[in-house]
């Protein structure tokens, strides 16, 4: 089999497993998996930039919350339908990531990390500052009667599961296609040796900017869908913690692999869920995992599998 066929089979297999899972797992895990699928889209968006271009952003909460607030504010204040609100959310993340990319990409390395961190912090503070519209820290609830698309009630667990699944499936296949495209290969070339890519005549800045926009738009899509499906829009999703979490998921699952972000989100979600049952200081788990990963497995789970067993893993 060609590597492309193998990887397509693998990812379609994962999607098939998720369809089967909906009929067999308990309601508790069913609800969790819906959340994980949407959050995995966030992680996949983060991975486009971190895993394939090698740019470590500490500000992706900005794009996630741009999608979420774009969707929520459009519904709350403009009274648009759910589907149109999602589009507004995605569009706001698209515009914001283009602006952020255009300024932040003038820096590299540590400066890029700090610039994205600061811009995201400014975004979070702006949400608090415009508390009249955003309801600040408290956030706002999207009433169940508005959470319908084409007559389908998104508060119903099964509908919600398949809505999350649909978004995940589309984003997974899009990322897969991106990675196999010539554009994706140029991104990897930039990650491996930026100077060399430039010498070969590629417009490095333009490629990076497009990668930031794809990454930010995917993250914003996750934010908009998450807000709509679970009915809550709040400033917590704009804090530094939500910039660190996608980094953690991607590092754990394996940066630079298409399937890694999903695996990382799945493991981390359950790890945090399990430890929050034991102690209120559950974020200590995130800290320990981050330190252990940097020390012992910088490639993450899927990265280790790729290195040892399946070199064709995209």
């Amino acid at each position: 089999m060609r590597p492309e066929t193998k990887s397509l089979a693998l990812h379609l297999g994962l999607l098939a497993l998720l369809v089967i899972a909906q009929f067999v797992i308990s309601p508790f895990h069913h609800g969790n998996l819906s959340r994980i699928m949407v959050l995995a889209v966030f992680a996949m968006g983060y991975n486009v930039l971190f895993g394939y271009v090698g740019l470590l952003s500490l500000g992706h909460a900005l794009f996630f919350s741009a999608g979420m607030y774009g969707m929520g504010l459009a519904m709350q204040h403009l009274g648009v339908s759910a589907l149109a609100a999602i589009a507004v959310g995605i569009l706001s993340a698209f515009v914001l990531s283009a602006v952020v990319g255009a300024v932040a990409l003038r820096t590299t390395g540590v400066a890029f990390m700090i610039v994205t961190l600061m811009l995201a912090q400014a975004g979070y503070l702006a949400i608090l500052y415009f508390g009249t519209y955003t309801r600040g820290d408290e956030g706002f609830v999207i009433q169940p009667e508005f959470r319908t698309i084409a007559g389908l009630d998104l508060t119903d667990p099964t509908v919600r599961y398949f809505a999350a699944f649909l978004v995940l499936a589309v984003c997974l296949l899009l990322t897969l296609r991106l990675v196999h495209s010539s554009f994706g290969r140029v991104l990897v070339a930039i990650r491996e040796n930026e100077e060399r890519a430039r010498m070969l005549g590629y417009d490095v800045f333009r490629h990076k900017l497009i990668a930031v926009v794809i990454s930010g738009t995917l993250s914003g899509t996750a934010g908009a869908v998450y807000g709509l499906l679970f009915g809550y829009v709040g400033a917590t999703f704009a804090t530094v913690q939500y910039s660190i979490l996608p980094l953690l998921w991607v590092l754990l699952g394996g940066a630079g692999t298409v399937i890694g972000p999903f695996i990382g989100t799945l493991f981390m979600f359950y790890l945090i869920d399990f430890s929050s049952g034991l102690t209120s200081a559950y974020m200590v788990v995130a800290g320990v995992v981050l330190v252990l990963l940097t020390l012992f497995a910088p490639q993450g789970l899927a990265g280790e599998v790729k290195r040892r067993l399946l070199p064709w893993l995209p």
Partner: protein
Amino acid sequence: MDFGPYLLLASLEGAVMAAVLALTAVGLSIVFGVMRVVNVAHGEFFMLGAVFAWWVASWAVGHPAIGFVLALVLAPILVGLIASAADMIVLKRVEYDPERTIVATIGLLYIIQQVTLMTFGPEARPVQPPFNQRLALPWFEFGENGFEIIWPWGLGTTSYKLFVIAAAIAILLAVWALMSRTKLGLYMRATQLDRQMAQAFGINVERVYVSVFGFGAGLAALGAVLIVPIQQAHYLMGGDPLLLSFIVVIIGGLGSLSGTVVAAVLIGMSDGVISMFFSPTLAKILSTLLVAFILIFRPQGLFGKRAA
């Protein structure tokens, strides 16, 4: 209160903040300058300083001053030891790679913060100041009787706040003397300029790194011990100092100590004054945006020189 006395009061509060900020930011700046790594856990070392200060002070008996002096000595040493241990266990093994160090110190941030939550608890706890006399401050005005000195109601400070400012200046002078007058300071500056060359001249660079990381964290802890009688110790108190130190270090020019101190005074004072007249949130939005744009358009900082 009139505008004049109000401004004086705001700048006094700002000066206290600037004093503590200068200590914390100089700690971050030394670590960045010598080791070329960004320590995201710096705010948590600040928080640990405050928590240890409470812990030491709660053990001490007698006059609150005894507990405070003990805390002033012991808390920075304890925090410095913890930081040095973290350096040896974690940072040394990722070979001080800038990006991996940031990820690792984010991990350390959560570990320190959450372990404090488990042990110290979620409450804010106070430490008694060693002395705390209220001092009223005079103001002048040109009234019907010509020039006169008045004592406006509410215009005043405490002896402890003045002590914080004086102590911070003394500590900063000591740091300056350490860096420019001692052998250890010479080793640090040599390592900062050229790591390989320093190693070739027989400097144990690894040991310099361990002590610099501990020293930087100790300075943050020292700032925290000074502020804790005014602010109380809490497990989440590390966030603001971290953000502000970042701002100060970047505006002052990465790795430049004098620039850091100037920027700390500037940011501390203006933050105090702006927060008093406008919204504190707006002040923070403006300063974070300022930092982002300085990094993009003037990476050497406002006061730094462009590296060759």
